[in-house]
C-alpha cells in the first residue's frame, strides 16, 4: 500500500492524542470507584453526584463568570488593537503590538507571580475580578491575532464608501465594518472563552478563596473517591466543547456564505 508507513504513523498519532480523552466517558459511566480495567458496570451515579456537589457547582459558576467576562474584555480590547494596527500608522507601532503579543511567549507562571506581587502591593483583594483581569491579559494576544486577520481582509474603500454616502465614522463602523468582522469577533470570543475556562496557573494564584473549575479539579485529585465524579465532569466539558465548536463553525460558515467570500480554513 502506498504511504503505508505514514498512514500507520498518522493512526498512532491520533490514537495518542485522543485515546486518553475517549477514556473519560468510559470511566464516567463505570460503576467501579477505581479508575482501572476491567470495567464493573454501567451507572450514571457519578453524574448525579456531580450535579449534587455544591462546591463543584460553585467552581463551575465562577469559571463561567470569569470566562464570559474575560472573553468579552479581551475581544473588546482586541477590536481596538486590531483596528488600530490594520488601519492606522502611528509611532512605535511595532513595539506596542509586540507588547500586546508578549503574554503569548512569557511563561504563565512568571505572569501570575508578577500579577500577584503587583496586586498584593496595591492592596487589591484577590477574588474573581483579579482572575478576570489576569485572563483578559493572556487572552488578548489570541483575540488580537484573530481580529487583525478579520480586519485585514476588509477592503478599505468599504468604509470610505459608507463615509462618502453620508455616514459618520462611527456609524460607518457600526453599519459596515462590524457586520463584516462579526465572524472574527465570534471566533475571538469563543477562543478566549476556551482559554479562560481551562486556565489553571493564573486562577490558582489570583483566585484567593474562590475556586475555578481547574483549581477545584486539582484540589479533588487528592481524594480517590472523587475521581469518578471528575471523570463525569470531564465528559460534560468535552461534550460542551464539541457543541461550542460546532456552533462557532456554523456561524462562521454562514457569515462567509452571506458575504460570498471564499472559505479559507476554519475550525472544522
Amino acid at each position, binding site marked *: 500500500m502506498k504511504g503505508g508507513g505514514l498512514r500507520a504513523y498518522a493512526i498512532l498519532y491520533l490514537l495518542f492524542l485522543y485515546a486518553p480523552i475517549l477514556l473519560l466517558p468510559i470511566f464516567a459511566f463505570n460503576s467501579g470507584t477505581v479508575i482501572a480495567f476491567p470495567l464493573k458496570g454501567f451507572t450514571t451515579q457519578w453524574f448525579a453526584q456531580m450535579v449534587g456537589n455544591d462546591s463543584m457547582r460553585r467552581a463551575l459558576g465562577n469559571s463561567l463568570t470569569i470566562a464570559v467576562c474575560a472573553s468579552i474584555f479581551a475581544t473588546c480590547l482586541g477590536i481596538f488593537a486590531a483596528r488600530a494596527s490594520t488601519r492606522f500608522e502611528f509611532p512605535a507601532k511595532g513595539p506596542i503590538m509586540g507588547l500586546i503579543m508578549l503574554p503569548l511567549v512569557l511563561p504563565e507562571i512568571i505572569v501570575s507571580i508578577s500579577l500577584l506581587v503587583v496586586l498584593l502591593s496595591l492592596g487589591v483583594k484577590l477574588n474573581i475580578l483579579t482572575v478576570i483581569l489576569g485572563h483578559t491579559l493572556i487572552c488578548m494576544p489570541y483575540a488580537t491575532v484573530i481580529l487583525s486577520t478579520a480586519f485585514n481582509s476588509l*477592503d478599505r474603500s468599504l468604509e*470610505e464608501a459608507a*463615509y462618502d454616502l453620508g455616514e459618520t465614522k462611527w456609524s460607518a463602523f457600526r453599519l459596515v465594518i462590524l457586520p463584516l468582522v462579526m465572524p472574527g469577533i465570534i471566533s475571538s470570543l469563543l477562543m478566549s472563552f476556551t482559554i479562560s475556562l481551562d486556565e489553571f496557573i493564573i486562577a490558582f494564584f489570583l483566585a484567593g478563596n474562590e475556586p475555578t473549575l481547574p483549581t477545584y479539579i486539582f484540589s479533588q485529585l487528592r481524594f480517590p473517591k472523587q475521581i469518578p465524579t471528575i471523570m463525569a465532569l470531564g465528559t460534560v466539558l468535552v461534550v460542551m466543547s464539541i457543541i461550542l465548536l460546532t456552533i462557532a463553525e456554523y456561524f462562521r460558515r454562514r457569515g462567509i456564505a452571506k458575504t460570498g467570500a471564499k472559505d479559507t480554513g476554519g475550525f472544522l
Partner: protein
Amino acid sequence: MTTPASSTAAHRARTAAARPMIECRGIQKHYGDYHALRGIDLTIRAGEFFSLLGPSGCGKTTLLRTIAGFEDIQSGVILIDGQDMDGVQANARPTNMVFQSYAIFPHLTVAENVGFGLRRDPRSKAEKAAAVEEALEMVGLKGYGKRASHALSGGQRQRVALARALILKPKVLLLDEPLSALDRKMREQMQVELIKLQRQVGITFVLVTHDQEEALVMSDRIAVMFEGQIAQLDGPEALYARPTSRRVANFIGVMNFLPAHVLGDTPDGVEVEVPGLGRVEIPAKNVSSKDPDDEGPSVGFRPEAVSLVGAGQPVQGRVTEGVIDEVVYYGDMTYYDVRLDGSASFDGKARPIRIAMRNVFGREVQDVGTRAKVSWSPGSLVLFR
C-alpha cells in the same frame, strides 16, 4: 462611438459656458517626503464630463480623493459650486464616489446597497423604495433589488455602485478608474453607457483613468497629469491633434518625431527644415514652445496623418519617397515603418516613421523592402521647439 457627434458637440458647447463646479487653486499635497500634488490649478465646469489622465503615481487619484475629502491638503483651496471645502468632511460634501473596487457592501442586498445613503433621508419607507427602484432602473438593473450583492458580475457591481452614488443626486460624481476591472468588451459597453447616463442626469462627472482611449472616448475635457502637475488641459481632439509637449504626445496614442531645424517665423507660423520632409511651414496653432526635454526642436505627426500612396492613386498634399522597413498587419489596420529618403541627413541616424493605413477592400498590403510614396500635409504636423 455611438453617441452622435452633434449631441457631443452641443453638450460641449453648453458646458463650455457653464459656471465653474469645482475650482482647485494651488493645491499642494505631501506624503512625508513624497510630493504628490505640486500646485494644481484647475476649473471643472458644471455638467462637464472631465477626466484626469496620467500614468500610475502621477497624483490623479490623490487629486480625486482630495476633492472627495478623503485626503487633507497642505495648502490650496478647493471650491465646490462656489463653497470652500476647507474643514468640510467627506460625508458632508456634495460629491459621491464610485470606487475602483466598487466597494459594494457584501452583507447587504442590491437594494440595501443602493438605498444605503438614504438612511438619513426623512422620506417614508415606500418613497425610498421607489427611489431605489428608480435608480436601479436608470442603470439597467430593474428587478435586481432583492439579489445578494456578492453574486453580481463585475459589470453589475459597477452599476450598483453608480446607482448607489447617483441616488443621492450629488453635484459631482467622482469615478476612480471605474472600468479597469472589466474585460475589454464590457469596458467599451460601459463607456458608452456612462456617457449616456451623464447626459441624462446632467451631473458633473470627474473620471480618473490611466487609459488614454477611455479618456478620449468619454470626456468633454481632459487634464493630463505627470508627477503631481497638470501637463495639458484640453478637449480630446485638441489633446490628440495638438499636444503641447512630447511627453503628452507620447502618452496619448503614438506619435512620430523627426528632428527639425527652425529657419524662422513667418506671418502664419514657423518655417522649419525636416530631414526626409524638406522645408515645411508649420501653422502657428500647431507650434508648441514649452517642451521640457532637451532633445532640441522636433516635429511630430500621428501615424494616421500620413498615408502610403499606391500605384496609380491620386496624390493629395505633399509626397515624399521612402523604403518600407516593417509591415504589421492587424486585420482592420496595417502599420508600416517607412524610412524616408534623406531622413538620416541630419546626423546619419535613420528614423523610420510609422504609418497607419486602414485596410480598405481592394487595397493591397505592401511588402517589406519595396519603395513607397508617402503623402502628408503640413497642417497635420506639430512643432515642439
